């Protein structure tokens, strides 16, 4: 056992693993939802084991959103101050959007109120520009496509499922846009803004999101979702 580096992976890809389960031993990197002790890597959550290159990670079934600089997020304004807004980004960390990161010019508090631009309850699309766990995450809405989202609806998905919702090179999300004929904006924080042409399309979209949330880690999802859409549309015709 001692002497010589042991390179062992104890689980196969996509095996359901539990906190404390030994995944690998040796010169591997500890990826998402794992922890390392010495040169042993253990799962930290319930999820599916994933091995890619030399990185061992676990795709969690359930998670919460921890902001990362560069993430595109959909937030809801919850409070304001003379020079900033507080934004709920579906995370244990409330974000701050400062006036200088939202508006082209500073505003004169005597003449204008910040609420004129974003009011409580408004939905916005923005990007995380600062986050280091010692302070609140900071957002910007200056940028192409960022800003207030008008109309449409918000639905939430577990943040761990967002990569699957987008799919490889956008395969899943583009399929949904086409098949459901709707506008979709996906935030890394597990919030999805969508606008459909009809009530039925809206309902179908929510159903699809629920399915993805539930079944994300299981291979063949895109096909199953395509199948669901086909079946639902057929039901409508009859």
């Amino acid at each position, binding site marked *: 056992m001692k002497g010589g580096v042991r390179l062992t992976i104890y689980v196969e890809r996509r095996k359901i693993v539990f*906190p404390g389960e*030994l995944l690998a031993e040796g010169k591997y990197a500890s990826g998402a939802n794992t922890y390392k002790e010495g040169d042993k890597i253990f799962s*930290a959550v319930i999820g599916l084991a994933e091995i890619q290159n030399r990185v061992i990670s676990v795709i969690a079934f359930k998670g*919460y959103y921890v902001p990362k600089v560069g993430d595109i997020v959909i937030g809801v304004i919850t409070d304001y101050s003379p020079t900033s807004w507080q934004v709920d980004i579906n995370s244990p960390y409330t974000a701050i959007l400062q006036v200088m990161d939202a508006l082209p010019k500073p505003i004169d508090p005597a003449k204008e109120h910040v609420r004129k631009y974003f009011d409580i309850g408004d939905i916005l699309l923005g990007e995380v520009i600062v986050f280091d766990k010692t302070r609140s995450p900071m957002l910007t809405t200056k940028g192409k496509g960022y800003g207030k989202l008008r109309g449409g609806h918000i639905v939430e998905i577990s943040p761990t499922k967002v990569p699957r919702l987008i799919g490889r090179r956008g395969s899943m999300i583009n399929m949904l846009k086409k098949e459901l004929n709707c506008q979709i904006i996906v935030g890394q924080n597990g919030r999805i803004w969508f606008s459909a042409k009809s009530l039925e399309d809206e309902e179908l979209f929510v159903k699809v999101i629920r399915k993805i949330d539930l079944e994300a880690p299981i291979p063949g999802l895109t096909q199953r979702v395509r199948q669901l859409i086909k079946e639902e549309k057929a039901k409508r015709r009859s």
Partner: protein
Amino acid sequence: MENDKISLVTEDGLRVDGRKLDELRPVKIEVGVLANADGSAFIQQGKSKLLVAVYGPRELHPRHLALPDKALIRCRYHMAPFSVEERKSPAPSRREIELSKIIREALEPAILVDRFPRTSIDIFIEVLEADGGTRCAAVTAASVALAHAGIPMRDLVAACAVGKVDGKIVVDLCDAEDKYGEVDMPVAYMPNKKVVTLLQMDGILTREEFDEAFKKAISACEKIYEFQLNALKKHLSIIEEVKEEESNG
């Protein structure tokens, strides 16, 4: 007291509820029983019934309580007024305050608190029916609820109490054995890391008796761990079903 004492263990080595000395009560754990909580579990061990909810990680209010480098773990163990024979006042008793602390200290070492600083993870335990071993059942169910919530942990924590009744070491005391027995020793254990996170005892044990009881407690915790895994696997069974369909279809 000595003359009127109920015989808690018969000559055949059977206990008041018919169990053998090393036998656990039936354990049932259900995952995800509450819609609002981030993680939840229900446990029934013998006649003891508990409900656990986990909220978090979430923003901590009041803000000044937040720890700059790790999550704050808060735990409330509480017994419903109707959970015991004589109605218990809803106000927290000294026992509930001590147990809340002990349970928190049993779970905290398992949680990777460094991963979400300045947040809180709140664990709420409600005892609906108390028939002995509630603090252990609470730890067991709370672990499951934490895992259900997706909170990163080193390991689950499984707990079980052992004791001494009529001079014999027994596993998983029911209420009568706790009340009329000689020793009660609750233990919580991380089964993969193989470490103890909760250990209390009251009563008199010789060194040898302690060794025996302790060993049996660890063994019992390992059995409880199996119940936890099975409950979580069952909760994920829908995933397994789809997986199977995929490989067959």
